[in-house]
């Protein structure tokens, strides 16, 4: 019995410690991103742009393709049920609403966590192992300002863009099913989607995507900074950055969906 209690206690403490260090990192990032530049302490503009290309632009093909396929899958599954009541017209609505409200941000977050979150952890972890982080500190340069803030800003900007792209690609995926299988034209499908969607569907998705971007960056960078040991430690940090950020993204998704639900439609 004591063993069980000790186990629970130890893990709870570990969880609290992890959460508070994530919180510390986000607070420091927020300071260096939004307060320090106005105190004349600078922002790494070129690094941010570079990160935007890496995390955003380079992810366009994969996010687009995956979302296209998911849109198609949704259309198949929707039609399978809606056929029974002769309501295949609503496939467009089903695909459009579920993508913009839920799956667009989620698919984007999962892809970006795998692509960029892991890359953040690996980059910072390798720098930690090869004493580069220490070298920054010894020079009097702030590691958060130089390494975390550009990534965070890039993600906050690029996540909504990728999410919009994902929404669009998914709807096109659904449309391709509609055209081939349901004998709809593209314009009919798009009109049906537009009738079903309201602005709030898209905007809540975009709000979520910003939050997801923050989570992925913070977790990825935190895992990188906490690397211990050599190459093995970097590998472990990379893996756990993906696992932890996807987990936290789902938790945040639940929380925000609930908030949006209770605050109207």
């Amino acid at each position, binding site marked *: 019995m004591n063993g069980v209690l000790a186990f629970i206690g130890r893990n709870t403490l570990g969880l609290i410690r992890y959460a508070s260090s994530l919180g510390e990192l986000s607070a420091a990032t927020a300071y260096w991103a939004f307060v320090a530049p106005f105190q004349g302490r600078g922002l790494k503009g070129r690094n941010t742009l570079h990160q935007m290309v890496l995390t955003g632009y380079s992810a366009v093909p994969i996010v687009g393709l995956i979302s296209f396929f998911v849109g198609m899958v949704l259309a198949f599954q929707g039609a399978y049920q809606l056929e029974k009541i002769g309501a295949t017209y609503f496939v467009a609505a089903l695909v459009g609403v579920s993508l913009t409200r839920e799956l667009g941000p989620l698919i984007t977050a999962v892809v970006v966590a795998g692509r960029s979150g892991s890359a953040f952890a690996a980059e910072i972890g390798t720098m930690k192992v*090869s*004493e580069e982080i*220490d070298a920054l500190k010894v*020079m*009097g*340069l702030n590691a958060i300002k130089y390494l975390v803030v550009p990534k965070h800003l890039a993600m906050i900007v690029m996540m909504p863009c990728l999410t919009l792209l994902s929404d669009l690609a998914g709807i096109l995926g659904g449309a391709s099913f509609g055209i081939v299988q349901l004998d709809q034209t593209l314009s009919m499908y798009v009109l049906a989607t537009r009738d079903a969607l309201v602005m709030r569907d898209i905007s809540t998705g975009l709000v979520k995507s910003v939050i997801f971007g923050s989570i992925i960056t913070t977790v990825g960078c935190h895992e990188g900074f906490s690397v211990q040991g050599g190459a093995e430690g970097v590998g472990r940090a990379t893996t756990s950055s993906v696992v932890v950020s996807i987990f936290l993204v789902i938790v945040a998704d639940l929380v925000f969906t609930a908030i949006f639900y209770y605050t109207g439609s």
Partner: protein
Amino acid sequence: MMHADVQGPMIRVADLVTHYGERRVLNHVSLEIQPGETMVILGGSGTGKSTLLRHIVRLEIPTSGHVYIKDEDVCHMPDEKFDAIRQKMGMLFQSAALFNSMSIGDNVALPLRELTRLEEPTIRIMTRIKLDLVGLSGFESFMPSQLSGGMKKRAGLARALAMDPEILLFDEPSAGLDPITAAGIDSLILKLKLAFRMTIVVVTHELASAFMIADRITVMQGGEIVAIGTPEEIRANQNPRVQQFLNRVPEDESRDIQAYLRNLTGPAS
């Protein structure tokens, strides 16, 4: 060799105690390093000498005790205040710690670009001067991965020198280098010492290199200082632990048979 603007020691370590987890790594270490002096901290692996160096640049915060640089307690001051002191310190890391995503020139220029308001042409000239000083002229556009171990150390040293530091710290400068390259780094340290009269602290386990560059040597063992003195004094020191290190006598490996058997047959820990 005294700098006009500093009275008393440049670096003073007072009663430093530090732990990694439960293990005590430094045990009441006290040490004074005078301005313009080259102090070599000598000791085997795991004796706490690198840890001591990391405390001097405040990469670690001690359990108790103080580190004073020019009479200012660096362990307990706000980051902003320490940044000013830090800019007058340069450090060469064991692995050189060059930023692998930047060229050698950008590595050396980084502190100048970030911490000064110099114009880009000036920065370029200063970068070339520093690279020339360490014998790497013409290597600005090389990436760290294209350099050999010895050249990486030289480039790391050029970066450490970028801000014209008053204190220069070396963590195992000859680690991982062949004897000839290591001797090259040693003579570079000697050259810098004569040319700039910087306060230099070198952590090493290489006896030859220690006796070549040191004004004074501190011998550490088991997280404690066992002897401090000039190279001659250290050679003449009769402390068995100092002599053991100087004569490269391995640790006694004989052990208690009973304890050995208990260890083998006991429960897994």
